[in-house]
């Protein structure tokens, strides 16, 4: 097996920069290919590779299809159709659920009539002050080469790895086969490098089709497709719904929200601690578990809960072996970051429920990597999250982020529909029939994050 060339791979693919809590994502446009190349030449030596821990700051970058068009209008082997078409199209809209209140026509950025984004510059730093240093470093060159920063998306991590609803986030990550020496894991969670990075074998023991330049240069090698989506979270609405459903009993409301997520706010999976959170810190990041043996009927953790839909593990179709193989072929590497002021500084749900709420928008910059957008990110979104028929369900979109709408026909939007959420139980299931949407897509694009050699080549 080829070992991972971490010196050539951008750092964000190897690590999540846990300690770099501040970040800015700059959506940029270049006036022409020539100046884009000059800017890349300036940027290339700054880019953080995956070789070593970055220290106090990190730079990464990724191109859009429009940006690539400027740099390499002709390709030897082109990028995938998904990347070239981009996130926004009438077909993709049905796959991703970007209609009704997610409709891309209403996005803050990334909609068809917005100016083209050519690339994204991602800057991470350990403090606000250091992040400012990063900006200063970049800004003069931005001006010099006439780069337009269309939008700056700022993110600040929340305490205890929380997301805005108050849940421990980002626990379930695939372990790359090439990094196994450093990290041990269950075989079901060790995923072939080629699922996330071009130039290595994927879960089918094949090399994923990689874009190449006309001179045969393997542009994809050590690169990856990056999905970026801005997802607004209606924190107040989320907790109000839970409280309404549970007669304003805080404990019960948290229990219901946990059933929807599939983990307690601490991160403890319901399947390992059914009924209530045992409070065992060892379980807070627990990820080494399946569903088949202990919970094939979903009576501990509902079949339609968010984490079960996002990664069904061995729990689908009462066939654990096959389910594990299938699950391994639809994984993504997540690198999301929250945005907006925390509603309660502690990020404890009890405090969030009590808090009066913040006026600023809160949400998540959903960021993930894969080498086959159609088979990985889009599949998960369509077949698992938004699919009401997931496993043996009838009418259950993902209760946390799914959309239960009917896609527009002939361009005509239909009104939002409330979702169902089935809570399997003995002797008989319970059901919520009026789950509203708690998250709203506000922008997004598909990017390609090249390896360092490829950046230098493109800058030539």
């Amino acid at each position, binding site marked *: 097996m080829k070992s991972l060339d971490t010196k050539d791979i951008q750092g964000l693919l190897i690590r999540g920069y846990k300690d770099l809590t501040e970040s800015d994502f700059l959506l940029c446009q270049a006036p022409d290919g020539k100046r884009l190349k000059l800017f890349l030449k300036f940027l290339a030596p700054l880019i953080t590779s995956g070789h070593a821990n970055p220290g106090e700051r990190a730079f990464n970058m990724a191109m859009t299809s429009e940006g690539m068009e400027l740099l390499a209008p002709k390709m030897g082997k082109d990028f995938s*159709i998904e990347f070239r078409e981009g996130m926004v199209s009438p077909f993709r809209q049905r796959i991703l659920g970007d209609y009704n209140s997610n409709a891309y026509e209403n996005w803050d950025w990334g909609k068809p009539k917005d100016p083209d984004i050519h690339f994204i510059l991602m800057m991470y730093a350990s403090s606000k002050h250091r992040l400012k240093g990063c900006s200063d470093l970049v800004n003069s060159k931005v001006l010099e080469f006439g780069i337009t920063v269309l939008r700056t998306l700022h993110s600040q991590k929340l305490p205890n790895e929380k997301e805005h609803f108050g849940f421990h986030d980002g626990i379930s990550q695939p372990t790359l086969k090439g990094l196994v020496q450093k990290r041990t894991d269950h075989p079901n969670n060790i995923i072939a490098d080629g699922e996330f990075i071009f130039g290595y074998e994927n879960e089918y023991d094949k090399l994923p089709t990689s874009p190449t330049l006309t001179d045969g240069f393997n542009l994809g090698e050590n690169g990856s497709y990056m999905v970026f989506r801005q997802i607004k979270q209606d924190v107040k609405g989320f907790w109000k719904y839970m409280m309404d459903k549970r007669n304003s009993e805080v404990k019960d409301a948290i229990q219901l929200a946990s059933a929807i997520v599939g983990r307690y706010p601490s991160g403890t999976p319901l399947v390992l601690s059914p009924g209530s959170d045992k409070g065992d810190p060892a379980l807070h990041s627990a990820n080494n578990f399946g569903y088949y043996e202990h919970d094939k009927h979903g009576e501990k953790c509902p079949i339609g809960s968010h984490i079960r839909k996002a990664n069904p593990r061995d729990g689908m*179709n009462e066939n654990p072996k*096959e389910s594990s193989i299938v699950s391994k072929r639809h994984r993504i590497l997540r690198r999301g970051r929250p945005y907006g002021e925390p509603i309660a500084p502690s990020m404890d749900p009890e405090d969030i429920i009590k808090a009066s709420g913040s006026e600023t928008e809160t949400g998540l910059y959903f960021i993930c990597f894969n080498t086959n957008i159609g088979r990985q990110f889009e599949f998960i979104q*369509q*077949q698992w999250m938004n699919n009401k*028929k997931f496993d043996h369900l009838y009418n259950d979109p993902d209760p946390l982020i799914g959309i239960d709408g009917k896609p527009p*026909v002939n361009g005509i939007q239909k009104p939002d529909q409330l979702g169902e959420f089935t809570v399997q139980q003995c002797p*008989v299931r*319970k*059901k919520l029939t009026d789950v509203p949407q708690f998250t709203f897509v506000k922008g997004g694009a598909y990017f390609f994050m090249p390896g360092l050699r490829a950046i230098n080549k493109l800058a030539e």
Partner: protein
Amino acid sequence: MIYQSPLTVLAPIIPDRLPALRSILDTINKEVEENEFISFSKLTTIHFCRFVIITPLNENGTSGPAWLAFSTNYDGELDQHLNELYSKAGNGFDQIYSQCENYQASGSAQFVGYMKAHMMPFPNAFYIGHRGLSVETIWKQSKIRKAIQEFLNDQPQDANKPLQIKKNIINHLKLKHPQLMEGEPPAIHLKSLALPILITLVILLAIGFAFSWTLLLWFLLALLGVIGLLYVLLRQKENSDPQIEIKDESELVSNISRLTANEDFTVQNQLTHLVTIKSGWFRLFLLKLVLWGINVLAVREFNKGKLGNIPTIHFARWVIIDKGRRLLFFSNFDGSWESYLGDFVDKAAVGLTAVWSNTDLFPRTKNLAFQGATDEERFKYWTRVHQIPTQVWYSAYKTLSVVNVINNNEIHQGLFAEMNEEAAIKWLRKL
């Protein structure tokens, strides 16, 4: 028990009528349930239906006619089905088939005669996801489940014991929905492989007893010899047959966007796939043999809702057309194309490779059934290259998955079955 059957009609299109035909089919597809030609929602015998325009086969510089393929999965008798089509949408069918050669719009008998004259023989292989369930039954069982769901939502039962809950459900249905409790649930008899295996054994033994054991041995050796020869021939071809290369031609991209423009509006999708069979008797023979085998398995083994291990196919059929030159495939399935093709690779690669390895440019195979489809990207690319647009597609129950249909039937059957507590718990899990 009700039988669901496949109808495939191929009629040659009058060359200069192609645009007119397309326009009729487009109009139908826009509002497939209700339109001026065929209002499908009025037809009670159809599960799934499609019209497909099949481009001519070009061979040796000459091209045949373009075909209009019409396909249904229908309940009951063929004559009854055809008569229903004409009695409820005769005008529409007349207008459609007037664009085809030799059709005279002069009444029901003419229509039925024309359809039968252009009907293909039973498909080389035909798969049914939910055997023995008519459209009417599927809808009735869906209503039963819905009524139970409403009851459970309105009157939570979790304080009761399982058998009591079941009793309450039955009482509620009898009181509020008596019509749903009328009649017995359908009796479904599934065939198994035991009989054909037994018959084969008996024949072999009979040869041994009646003639001589030496003769039987020679017979088996000869059979083995033939298989061996075929195998050598196959391996040779497998190593030299060209396979498809992934290219990004703009023509293909626009083809794909034409296909995807009709995908993912409901939980179900369809696929029409047309590919040239590799030339020569050898591949055609193998293909027919494999499809025959699949058909036997579909009837006797894969008859409980899963083809191989794929649980999402309502109906599928393989039909060899153009006198053995092309293989046509129709499928009605749940979920997205990506997920369907993924299932092909993950759960049924062997069977599907055995079929399509006999057709042009299929990804390289080994021993007929291996590799091939497991070359995931290449296989998906190959499938898209040979996929053709379906002009009209109708589903009678587009909100139900195969898994739902089968589960609804089990709920229905359970309502009428005596149960102990353990069985009742199992039954309640289906709700």
